[in-house]
């Protein structure tokens, strides 16, 4: 409709029924329909802005703005901000500080102020709370009175730390998130080597995400290919095996992996039963020292402990929290309850004998509560996000191309690598970026099966939100993570296009 009108308006302006030029009429009509479309989107846009975008912006600002000190310590804040951080601490500063201490003690806000300063200088919490108790009875000169209460008040770096806390708008948190230190005199230095944890954490998060992405690609590509090649009926049936995990709760799948991978879990049982654990052990002993291996002979330890001293072993098993008891331990405990010490001993001996009779040791691998467990469980959870985009791209590649390549003399490998593979690259890009974006912010799985070395940046953010209550640092870490994610989101939009995102 639009094209026909623009062609005819080239010569004389056509007029609509009411006398206005047709072009303007068309513009008006287009404007109205644009507004109508916008009106349909507006409610959701307003909703998302109000409950999603604005909270995120507000949170990110908290990473730069922390008014806890300035709001509660009105006397000392302006003086500290005016202080250059180098000249000696004045009596005026001390007097303002004592006034503020009395004030915050009266309105019971001293705890929050102390916590805030403690983030800059550890030890400040007790210094503030104890000095505030004595502040009522302090007499001039106040500086000496403060030093009497706590000798840390005499140190200039303590006052510099308080100055940092008194500055509401501060780059300190974002710098801390990148392992830099922001001092009261405005200097920026790198964090001490042993306290540089955040950058290493970001690197580890990226590393785990990358490994997960690659594993998903390696596992997802053949499956997607098979699904794309099979007749529709069969493919739909097999697709259920991909979609069922996709629809199953992440918590369920993480729980399932705990049952699969734990010391007494299905995988370890299976490996012990088939003797595979011995094979793996022998192979890894070629490369490693036995002590370095991540092998825990859980059952072996239990049996040996029991054979050494039954009462001590039973006491140990009985004291372990419910659910963490190994099966050997539980069996020995049950035997002890039924047949006393001698019964437990004979049961332990039977267990040891059965292990020997089978010719297998009971070396079990710790595959969970570490990085390996996180990677396995995350790969399983994110695999459908790789398979589905790959599948939808592979469906569009005509099978005749491969046949044509082969008929012209290409080997199977050449036909795949030169003809088929290049056409699936858009699917690889879409799947890999989606998996990577989702992996980098993952929280639940690392929190539940990550142990110590499987923790990711999200777990740290949550730790600062809910445990250490340092919201500003959480916001700064979140800000860095957000920038990384937004970069990959932008890349995804450039390469794949957001409107090409598909589900199921």
């Amino acid at each position: 409709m639009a094209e026909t009108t623009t062609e005819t308006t080239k010569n004389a302006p056509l007029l609509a029924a009411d006398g206005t030029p047709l072009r303007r009429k068309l513009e008006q009509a287009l404007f109205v329909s644009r507004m109508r479309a916008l009106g349909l989107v507006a409610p959701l846009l307003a909703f998302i802005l109000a409950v999603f975008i604005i909270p995120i912006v507000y949170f990110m600002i908290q990473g730069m703005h922390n008014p806890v000190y300035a709001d509660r310590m009105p006397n000392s804040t302006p003086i500290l901000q005016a202080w250059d951080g180098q000249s000696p601490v004045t009596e005026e500063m001390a007097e303002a500080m004592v006034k503020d201490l009395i004030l915050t003690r009266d309105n019971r806000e001293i705890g929050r102020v102390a916590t805030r300063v403690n983030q800059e200088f550890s030890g400040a919490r007790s210094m503030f709370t104890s000095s505030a108790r004595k502040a009522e009875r302090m007499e001039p000169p106040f500086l000496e009175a403060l030093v009497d209460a706590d000798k840390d008040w005499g140190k200039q770096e303590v006052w510099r730390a308080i100055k940092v806390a008194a500055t509401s708008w501060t780059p300190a948190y974002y710098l801390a998130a990148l392992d830099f230190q922001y001092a009261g005199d405005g200097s920026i230095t790198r964090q001490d080597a042993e306290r540089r944890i955040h950058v290493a954490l970001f690197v580890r998060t990226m590393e785990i995400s990358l490994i997960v992405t690659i594993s998903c690609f390696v596992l997802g590509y053949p499956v997607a290919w098979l699904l794309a090649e099979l007749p529709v009926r069969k493919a739909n049936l097999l697709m259920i095996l991909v979609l069922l995990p996709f629809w199953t709760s992440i918590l369920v799948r993480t729980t399932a992996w705990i049952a699969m991978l734990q010391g007494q879990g299905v995988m370890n049982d299976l490996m012990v039963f088939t003797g595979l654990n011995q094979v793996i052990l022998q192979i890894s002993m070629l490369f490693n020292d036995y002590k370095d291996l991540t092998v825990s002979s859980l059952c072996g330890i239990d049996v040996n402990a029991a054979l050494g001293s039954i009462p001590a072993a039973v006491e140990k098993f009985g004291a372990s929290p419910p659910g963490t008891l190994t099966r050997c331990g539980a069996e020995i405990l049950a035997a002890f309850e039924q047949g006393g010490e001698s019964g437990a001993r004979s049961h332990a001996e039977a267990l040891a004998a059965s292990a020997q009779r089978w010719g297998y040791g009971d070396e079990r691998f710790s595959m969970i509560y570490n990085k390996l467990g996180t990677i396995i469980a995350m790969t399983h959870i994110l695999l459908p996000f790789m398979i589905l985009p790959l599948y939808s791209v592979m469906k569009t590649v005509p099978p005749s191309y491969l046949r044509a390549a082969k008929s012209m003399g290409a080997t199977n490998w050449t036909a795949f690598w030169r003809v088929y593979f290049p056409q699936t690259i858009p699917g690889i890009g879409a799947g890999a970026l989606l998996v990577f974006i989702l992996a980098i912010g993952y929280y639940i799985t690392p929190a539940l099966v990550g142990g110590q070395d499987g923790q990711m940046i999200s777990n740290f953010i949550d730790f600062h939100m809910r445990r250490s209550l340092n919201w500003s640092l959480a916001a700064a870490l979140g800000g860095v993570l957000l920038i990384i994610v937004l970069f990959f989101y932008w890349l995804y939009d450039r390469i794949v296009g957001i409107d090409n995102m598909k589900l199921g």
Partner: protein
Amino acid sequence: MSGLPPYASTGERVWYYSFRVICGLIFIFLITPILVVLPLSFNAQPYFSFTNEMLTFQEGAFSTRWYWDILENGMANPSATEGWWADVWQNAQWVRAVKNSFFIGIFATLIATALGTLAAIGLSRSEMPFSKVIMSILISPMIIPLVITGASMFSFFSLDFNPANWVVEGDQPPEDRWQLAFTYGGLILAHAALGTPFVIITVTATLASFDQSLVRAAQSMGADPVRTFFKVQMPLILPGVISGALFAFITSFDEVVVVLQMATAEQRTIPRQMFSGIREQISPTILAVATILVIISIALLATVEMLRRRSEKLRGMSPQ
């Protein structure tokens, strides 16, 4: 690859079968963890692993005690014979979690589906201005790490929204705090925001093959926009809307990170209860709950698949 031609060489045969074996192993990797949960949840012993008795199918190795535990856990008086059901309904932790999950999930789904469907219709109109930017904003709840979402919403929802407290004059006592954190309302709003991207994606995909001339046809016959929407467009895109709603529901039903930050102990949902269950006391009750959740997801998957086929059929009917 489909079918092996009779002239295939030995190498091709080997590759054909080994490829299938590899794919079979990957399918096993995908499905086994989910299936393993089922038999383990009937373990008579309080372990997360198969006992020897289970493997040899001995009597007494299997029991449904963990399914009963779902009902009993947290009851004031599990051995009472009177008022048993009322006790379960009010006190049992898992039952409360189920109630919370459905309450939050249903309202979040309603909001997400209503707003998301409208927005998807707007976004699929060709005259929509800034559609790319708006689309990327509307999809972002799906992309941004949940921890950031949860922390942001929690810190923002902790603010006092009561205008009477914004300007404090003198020693006037503060009015009631109006905050969304630790309320059902806050959780519903948060989950609705997280669910909308899924509604938009599914409904837009359905609309892509929707024949816009049907709308013009309806209007040319004198139907007003509202009537056109409900009588012509809505029935045709309904399968997409329902599967979008199911996606939104499962998103809320499965979400734990935001709940972890924003909910009180009273507002725990099923995944939140599982989360602390895994962390604090690993008991096979979790496996029993997991089994029930797997059955629910099978039902949801079947529904979505059915809707997809129906939608394809409907599309086949519309003129191209």
